[in-house]
């Protein structure tokens, strides 16, 4: 590798770090669930188990919320009318900043709020 290769590599790492820092800045105190669709954004508390039906251009994407006392609330997409089902394969999310998206059906699910003390600053796949 040569000099400019390292420069471009540093630029990639810088872009990753800057965007991660921008995303990590908290917007509210209590963790909450945001479900964004073409019709608008729905906000739910993470304290109750529920099934959310998020409408999109392809049909309804089912989002499951499972709240268990003493454990982090888990959120996942259980069913979606999209073709590749990547949103289902993305699995369960439970921490502030994590998200699941279904691009074809325009559904974006995100846990927002202030990270809990002792929690992770960031995650990597």
């Amino acid at each position: 590798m040569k000099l400019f290769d390292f420069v471009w590599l540093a630029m990639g790492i810088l872009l990753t770090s800057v965007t991660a820092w921008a995303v990590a800045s908290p917007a509210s105190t209590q963790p909450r669930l945001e479900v964004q669709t073409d019709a608008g954004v729905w906000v739910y508390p993470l304290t109750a188990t529920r099934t959310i039906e998020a409408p999109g251009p392809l049909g309804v994407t089912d989002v499951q919320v499972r709240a268990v006392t003493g454990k982090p609330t888990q959120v996942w997409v259980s069913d979606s009318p999209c073709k590749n089902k990547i949103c289902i394969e993305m699995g369960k999310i439970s921490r502030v900043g994590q998200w699941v998206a279904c691009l074809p059906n325009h559904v974006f699910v995100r846990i927002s709020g202030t990270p809990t003390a002792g929690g992770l600053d960031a995650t990597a796949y």
Partner: protein
Amino acid sequence: MPQPTERLLTSTDHRRLVPFLGALSLFLSTIEYLFPKPVPFFRLGLANLPLLVGLDTFNFRELALLLALKVAGQALVNGTLASYVFLFSLAGSTASFLVMVGLHRLMRRFPAVKRRSSLVSLGLAGALASNTVQILLSIQFIFGPTSLVIAPLFYGLGTGSGLAVGLLAQTFTQRSHWWKKVAYGTN
């Protein structure tokens, strides 16, 4: 690697090489399809490899044809030709293409830049350009400002895959006797 000073291939040879590399893009798209995607519309960029190794060999029109074959091949393999996901792929690939070709021209014009750069630079720059355009399109047309949440993962994965594809392209063009023969007519 000693670079050939002149091309020994005829225009007919070039016309044969472009569809061959287009087919290689299609094959690499199929390989890429086998890997699970951690993020929607993210690609590893393996199909970019023929474009990257062809930068030294082809002119702008031939490279643009190779880009068209690559984008169409990816859409056919992924089954997204008739969907707007195709537009994301087209926009990302075009941005990557323009940045890589532009930087390559810059390297040709300024030998000092060329001495300090390799295909790794082009691979990384192309990946970052593609990711940036796709994030901006996502912000503008799909999820709004919330799309920024996917940016760190996108850039992180893009940097890793751009580095890997760039290293692969660099190693291939340096070591492959077959490539030197078919691309430059030398051994």
